[in-house]
């Protein structure tokens, strides 16, 4: 063990003397994290959708007695897309070249159908091909849903006005004609002036029952319109940028790049410095040499990961962001960082042994790290095969471990399972690295 620690001390000293390397190794994964964040942000960006108005929508639309400012209504219901008014020809051209992802056409006759309320007016949606078409269709459906909700409210209000007129009497406008409605109240009053008879009493009973029934119409009509209503409570907690998942990914991604490159480069550098022969003649065995690189990776992951976690904690604290600060879980995270760093370090040592030269080893480590990291970012539900492959590498387990260590209410089971995975993978890669390290003598 003493020899392993001597080599680790030497490696840390060499690392301290390479500030450019150290800064690059720190900056690179953080830049990658930022880029991943930007890509994730793009996934939430508003798609551009063309609106082709063939119906000649007016500035203001009076519908069911309610007045709609068309521009404002469209703006309000289309918050998840950017709607641009285009001619039919422009819209089709832009759909073909991908400048818009969909075209919503308001066909001729739309307004008369809407006003007539005899059958539902139709909007035509045309989407392009490709990965985003499903998402765009969903967003257009959401847009139409929002529009329907607005109209529904107006229609219910109008229908309730009819019911009110039936109950209390009023002059209403229907299909452009004014109609005077007597109403149940006034009918009951008129009946009081009639001579008593069995028929009059039956009509008075009917009016009473009808008034009771119509009294329930308001809430019944609203309930029928929305059998299930979704109540959206304003969001509280972390912003997406500081979500548990993003923190776990940032930590894992940073230490994955750093430890893979570091361990691979450090092992291969023993050959570049021509000291591998000196060490191999009984001073430091291959197993001890690999162990030293694994410990080095674990220590660097520990120091760097702790610094990143503290930085996140401070931002959360200063920003007053709710959702649980990581301070209480720092000790758990430190153990996780050491285990994950060591496991990744073992994989790095394997690459270093196979590559044999420090420069080649570093390049190979970057090339290997990229797909491992991106495989680990693919959700299991989307591409199960990618998820299975990433299970064979420490990155995905490191993400889960950090997530559990920082944010799970009862982290022990998940923490233990992922730590075992990492330890097992680390041991496997370490054994292979020990065999590969013999190549350094050749």
């Amino acid at each position, binding site marked *: 063990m*003493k*020899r392993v620690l*001597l080599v680790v001390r*030497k490696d840390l*000293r*060499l690392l301290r*003397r*390479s500030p450019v390397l150290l800064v690059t190794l720190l900056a690179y994964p953080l830049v990658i994290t930022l880029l991943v964040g930007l890509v994730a942000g793009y996934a939430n960006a508003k798609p551009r959708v063309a609106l082709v108005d063939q119906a000649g929508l007016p500035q203001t639309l009076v519908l069911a007695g309610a007045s709609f400012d068309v521009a404002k209504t469209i703006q309000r219901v289309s918050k998840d897309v950017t709607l641009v008014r285009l001619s039919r020809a422009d819209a089709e051209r832009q759909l073909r070249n991908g400048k818009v992802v969909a075209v919503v056409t308001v066909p001729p006759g739309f307004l008369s159908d809407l006003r007539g309320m005899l059958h539902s007016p139709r909007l035509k949606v045309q989407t392009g091909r490709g990965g985003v078409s499903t998402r765009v269709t969903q967003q257009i459906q959401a847009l139409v849903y929002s529009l329907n909700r607005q109209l529904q409210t107006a229609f219910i209000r109008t229908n309730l006005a009819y019911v009110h007129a039936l109950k209390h009497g009023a002059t209403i406008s229907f299909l452009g004609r004014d109609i005077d409605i007597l109403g149940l109240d006034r009918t009951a009053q008129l009946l009081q002036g009639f001579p008593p008879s069995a028929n009059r009493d039956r009509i008075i009973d009917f009016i009473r029952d009808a008034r009771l029934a119509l009294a329930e119409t308001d809430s019944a009509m609203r309930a029928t319109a929305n059998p299930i209503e979704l109540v959206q409570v304003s969001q509280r907690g972390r912003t997406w940028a500081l979500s548990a998942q993003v923190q776990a990914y940032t930590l894992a991604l940073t230490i994955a790049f750093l430890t893979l490159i570091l361990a691979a480069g450090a092992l291969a550098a023993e050959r570049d*410095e*021509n*000291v*591998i*022969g*000196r*060490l*191999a*003649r*009984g*001073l*430091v065995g291959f197993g001890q040499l690999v162990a030293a690189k694994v410990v080095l990776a674990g220590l660097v992951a520990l120091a760097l990961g702790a610094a990143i976690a503290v930085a996140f904690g401070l931002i959360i604290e200063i920003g007053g962001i709710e959702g649980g600060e990581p301070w209480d879980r720092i000790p758990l995270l430190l153990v996780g960082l050491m285990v994950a760093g060591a496991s990744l370090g073992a994989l790095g040592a394997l690459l270093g042994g196979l590559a044999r030269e420090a420069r080649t080893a570093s390049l190979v480590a970057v090339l290997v790290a990229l797909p491992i990291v991106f495989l680990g970012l693919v959700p299991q539900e989307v591409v199960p095969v990618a998820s299975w492959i990433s299970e064979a590498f420490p990155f995905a387990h490191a993400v889960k471990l950090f997530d559990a260590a920082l944010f799970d209410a009862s982290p022990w089971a998940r923490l233990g399972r992922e730590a075992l995975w990492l330890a097992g993978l680390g041991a496997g890669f370490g054994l292979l690295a020990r065999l590969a390290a*013999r190549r350094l*003598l*050749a």
Partner: protein
Amino acid sequence: MTDAAIPLLAARGAGRRFGDQTALEPTTIEVWEGEVVALLGPNGAGKSTLLALLAGGLEPTWGLVECRPGVRVGWTPQRPAHYGRLSPRENLELFAELEEENDPVAAAGSLLAEFELPDSNRPSAGLSVGNRQRLNLAISMLGKPDVLLLDEPTASLDRPQRRRLWESAGLQRQRGGSVVFATQNHEELDGHADRVAVLVDGALVFDGPLDEYERTESARLLA
């Protein structure tokens, strides 16, 4: 069998192949107390490979290398083998600790003085070629080796340093230790070597006393 009947260090049919290239055919050679053995041969003859095999810095493809129990071996590879970003003192202290010197700091200080190496924080990579070779030699002296394996040790040394090196080799012999050095320089044989082993194209073609070697055809060809 007493220790005196066992060589300090021996290669028994030891050879090495790199890929499909044979660097050293199966070779048998023994190193005994108090002798200085010169390994002679042109470039690519297998001298460095044989020394690396004897040092344990390389594993033989065939045969084996035997070392008398308790015997310590020091090895100076042809290309300096130390950490370029560590200072000479840091290199010496690190290898002294790995060699389990009782007082690594004192051992490093003593060798810095003996080999006239700069005791500063300057990285070894920034030293002159001669100083790097001296550091290379100094590291191989750590752990008080009984057998010193030197691969073309005088190649980058100035005259006084060469003289000191041969004085150290003489002291090593007087203490009952031995020295094996590889060279292409015939002049280094006189006054330094007791025995000569000649390698040509990876094969040992001569192994015997210096005076016997000087009477052979090989001596005339290699001189």
